[in-house]
C-alpha cells in the first residue's frame, strides 16, 4: 500500500535517533563500500558511457544505499526508514505521465530512454538565477516563453522587490514570491502563451511560509504548475521542506524532488555521487511522493556541472534511472561561464547533448552558476533547446566522441571562468532584443559544433 503523508511525518518523529555527523559519515562509508561491491568505475576517458550493465549496477547500489540508510530528518535528529518492499511498490506505481500547463500549452511529461528519438521535455529559463529587478524578470520570462521548444518555464529569483533587498522569513520574501508568479504569468500572456506552466514555483520563496503564500491561486499559481521541494545534501530533509511538500500536494501541484548531490562532498567521488543521485531520486519518491525529479549534481569546488567527472555522474545516473524506472527526471545544467562567452555555449553543448542521449529531459540553464546577478539572457536556454533537439538524432557513442572534443575547449577554465556580460549589457531592457555581437558568437560556435558532429539547425 502507498505510504501516506501522515505516516511519513510519523516516521520522522519516531525513527531511530542518530547524530547528523554520524549519519554523514555512515553515508560516505557505505557509498564507498557499495561502489567497490558493485564494481562501479569512473572512466574519465569516456564521459558519456555506453555500458548499460554499469548503469544497472549504479541503480542497484543506489537502491541498496537508500534502503539501508534511510533519510535523515534534521528537525528531529531521527532516521526515517523504508523497506525494500515499500520502495519497490512505490516505484511500480510511480506516475509515468504527468500533465502540466493549460489550454494549448497543456502537455504530458513522459519518461525517455537512452538514445530515445523522442525530444526531451524542455524546461527553459533562468533556473532560479538572481535578477535585480521586476523589469528584468518580466522581459526575461517573456523571451523564454517565445522559445518554440519551451514546454515549461523556469523563472529567475528576485533579489529585490520595489528596490529593497529581500530578507528570508520576512514579509519582503512573501511579497517577492507573490510578485514573481504574478509578473511571470503576465509576461507569458504577452508572449502569447498564457497556458505555459511554471515548473519552479517559486524561485524567490526560500521558506515554507513564503512558498505557501505564493501558491495561492489569487496570485496566478495553478495546480498545473510544478513545485520544487529540496532534498538536503545528502539524503536529508526537515519539517520546513515537508511542510512545503504536504501543502503543495494537498493543493494538487506537481511536486518535484529537487536533488543536488555534491561531488567531493559527503557523497564522495564520481561513483559514489552517481549512486547517491539514484538514492535521492528514491528519497523524493518516498518522502515527498514526488511526481517528477529535478536533478543537478554539482562539483564541490567549481559549483557547476560541466566538468568531466560531473558529466559522467550525470550521464550514468540518468541512464540508471531511465533504464530501471519510469521516474520523470529532468537534469539541470549549471555552467560556470557567463553570457556572451564561447565557454558558456560549449558547456551547454556538452551537458545537454549527453544528458539527452542518456534518456532524461532537461532544465536549462543555470548560467554563471546561477550566482551572479543579471548574468543571463534568453540565448542560453534557446541554444540549449536547439542542442537538445539535435541530440535526439545522435547515439551515445556519437555524443561521447563529440563531448571528448568539446571538453578541452573549456576544462582548464572551470576554476576561473569568464563571466561575460550582464543582461543589461547584451539585451534591450525594454524589448529583450539580443545584441548582434552575441548572435554572431552563437552562429560561430554552432558552426564549430557542426564541424565536430553536432549539426544544430
Amino acid at each position, binding site marked *: 500500500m502507498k505510504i501516506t503523508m501522515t505516516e511519513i511525518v510519523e516516521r520522522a518523529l519516531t525513527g531511530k535517533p542518530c547524530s547528523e555527523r554520524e549519519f554523514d*559519515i555512515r553515508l560516505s562509508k557505505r557509498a564507498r563500500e557499495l561502489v567497490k561491491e558493485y564494481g562501479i568505475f569512473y572512466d574519465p576517458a569516456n564521459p558519456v558511457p555506453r555500458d548499460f550493465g554499469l548503469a544497472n549496477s549504479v541503480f542497484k547500489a543506489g537502491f541498496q544505499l537508500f534502503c539501508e540508510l534511510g533519510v535523515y530528518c534534521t528537525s528531529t535528529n531521527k532516521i526515517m526508514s523504508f523497506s525494500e518492499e515499500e520502495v519497490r511498490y512505490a516505484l511500480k506505481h510511480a506516475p509515468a505521465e504527468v500533465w502540466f500547463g493549460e489550454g494549448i500549452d497543456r502537455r504530458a511529461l513522459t519518461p525517455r530512454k537512452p538514445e530515445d528519438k523522442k525530444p526531451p521535455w524542455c524546461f527553459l529559463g533562468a533556473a532560479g538565477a538572481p535578477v535585480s529587478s521586476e523589469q528584468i524578470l518580466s522581459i526575461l520570462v517573456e523571451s523564454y516563453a517565445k522559445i518554440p521548444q519551451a514546454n515549461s518555464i523556469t523563472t529567475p529569483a528576485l533579489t529585490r522587490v520595489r528596490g529593497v533587498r529581500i*530578507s528570508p522569513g520576512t514579509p519582503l520574501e512573501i511579497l517577492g514570491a507573490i510578485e514573481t508568479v504574478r509578473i511571470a504569468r503576465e509576461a507569458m500572456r504577452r508572449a502569447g502563451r498564457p497556458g505555459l506552466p511554471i515548473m519552479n514555483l517559486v524561485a*524567490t520563496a526560500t521558506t515554507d511560509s513564503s512558498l505557501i503564500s505564493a501558491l495561492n491561486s489569487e496570485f496566478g499559481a495553478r495546480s498545473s504548475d510544478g513545485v520544487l521541494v529540496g532534498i538536503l545534501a545528502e539524503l536529508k530533509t526537515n519539517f520546513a521542506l515537508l511542510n512545503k511538500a504536504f501543502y503543495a500536494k494537498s493543493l494538487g501541484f506537481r511536486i518535484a524532488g529537487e536533488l543536488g548531490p*555534491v561531488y567531493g562532498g559527503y557523497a564522495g567521488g564520481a561513483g559514489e555521487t552517481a549512486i547517491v543521485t539514484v538514492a535521492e531520486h528514491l528519497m523524493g519518491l518516498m518522502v515527498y511522493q514526488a511526481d517528477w525529479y529535478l536533478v543537478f549534481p554539482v*562539483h*564541490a*569546488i567549481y559549483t557547476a556541472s560541466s566538468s568531466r567527472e560531473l558529466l559522467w555522474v550525470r550521464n550514468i545516473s540518468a541512464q540508471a534511472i531511465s533504464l530501471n524506472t519510469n521516474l520523470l527526471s529532468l537534469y539541470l545544467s549549471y555552467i560556470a561561464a557567463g553570457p556572451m562567452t564561447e565557454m558558456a555555449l560549449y558547456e551547454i553543448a556538452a551537458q545537454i547533448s549527453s544528458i539527452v542521449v542518456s534518456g532524461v529531459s532537461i532544465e536549462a540553464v543555470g548560467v554563471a552558476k546561477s550566482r551572479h546577478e543579471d548574468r543571463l539572457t534568453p540565448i542560453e536556454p534557446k541554444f540549449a533547446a536547439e542542442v537538445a533537439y539535435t541530440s535526439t538524432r545522435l547515439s551515445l557513442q556519437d555524443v561521447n566522441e563529440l563531448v571528448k572534443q568539446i571538453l578541452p575547449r573549456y576544462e582548464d577554465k572551470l576554476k576561473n571562468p569568464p563571466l561575460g556580460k550582464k543582461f543589461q549589457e547584451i539585451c534591450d531592457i525594454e524589448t529583450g532584443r539580443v545584441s548582434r555581437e552575441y548572435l554572431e558568437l552563437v552562429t560561430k560556435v554552432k558552426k564549430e559544433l557542426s564541424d565536430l558532429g553536432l549539426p544544430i539547425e
Partner: protein
Amino acid sequence: MSEEKYFAELREAIIAGDVQRARECAEKIVKEGLDPLKAIEEAIQPVAKIVGEKFEKLEIFLVDLIMSADAMKAAAEVLTSAIKAKRPLRPAGKVVIATVQGDIHDIGKNIVAALLVANGFEVYDLGVDVPALKIIEKAEEVGADVIALSALMTSTMRGQKDVIDMLKAMGIRDKYIVVVGGGATTAEWAREIGADGWAETAPEGVSLIRRLIEEKRGVKP
C-alpha cells in the same frame, strides 16, 4: 624509536582520519619526553597543509577531510596541554562560523570549518539558520578574531549584511574580521555589504582568513 618515527606515526594516523590512534600517538610523544611543540610544527601542520591541498584537488573528499581534521584536533589537544605548562600556544585564530538566518545549507560551511580546524584555528561552528545577534554574541563571548558567514541562496544573502549592519550599530564592527562566502555570493556582494573578504572556494577561504588575521596582527604574510 626515533623522534621522526613517532612523528611519522602521528602523520599516518591523521591522514587515515583515525582519531583514537592520533590521540594515542600524541600521548606517546608526550610520555617519551619529546618536544610537543616540535610535534605540532613537524607532524600536524605539514599534514594539515597536505590534507587541504588534496581536498582542493578532490583527491580526497569531505568525509576524509572531516575525519582528518578530527584526528588533528584530538592530537593537538594532547600536545597543546603538554605545552601549556611551559608557555601558552597561540591558535592560528579564533573563528565563529555560521550559515546565516533563513538558510539551512551547511555543506560549504562544514568544509570551511573542517579545513580551518585542520589548519590550527579554533573554530566555533554555530550551525545553520543562525540569527545575526546569536553570531555576534558568540564572537563576543569567545573573543573571536573572525566571523565567517555562509549563504547558499540569493534570497538569504542579506543575512550576511544583517550581521555586518548589527556589528556597526553596536559599535564593534572593527573588532572583527568579517568574511563571507557561499553559493550565492560574489566579491561584488562582499564589497557592497562592507565585508573584509570573500572567497569562492573553501581552501581559498582558509587562505583568506589566515592572510587577514596576519595583516591585523601586523605579521607579514
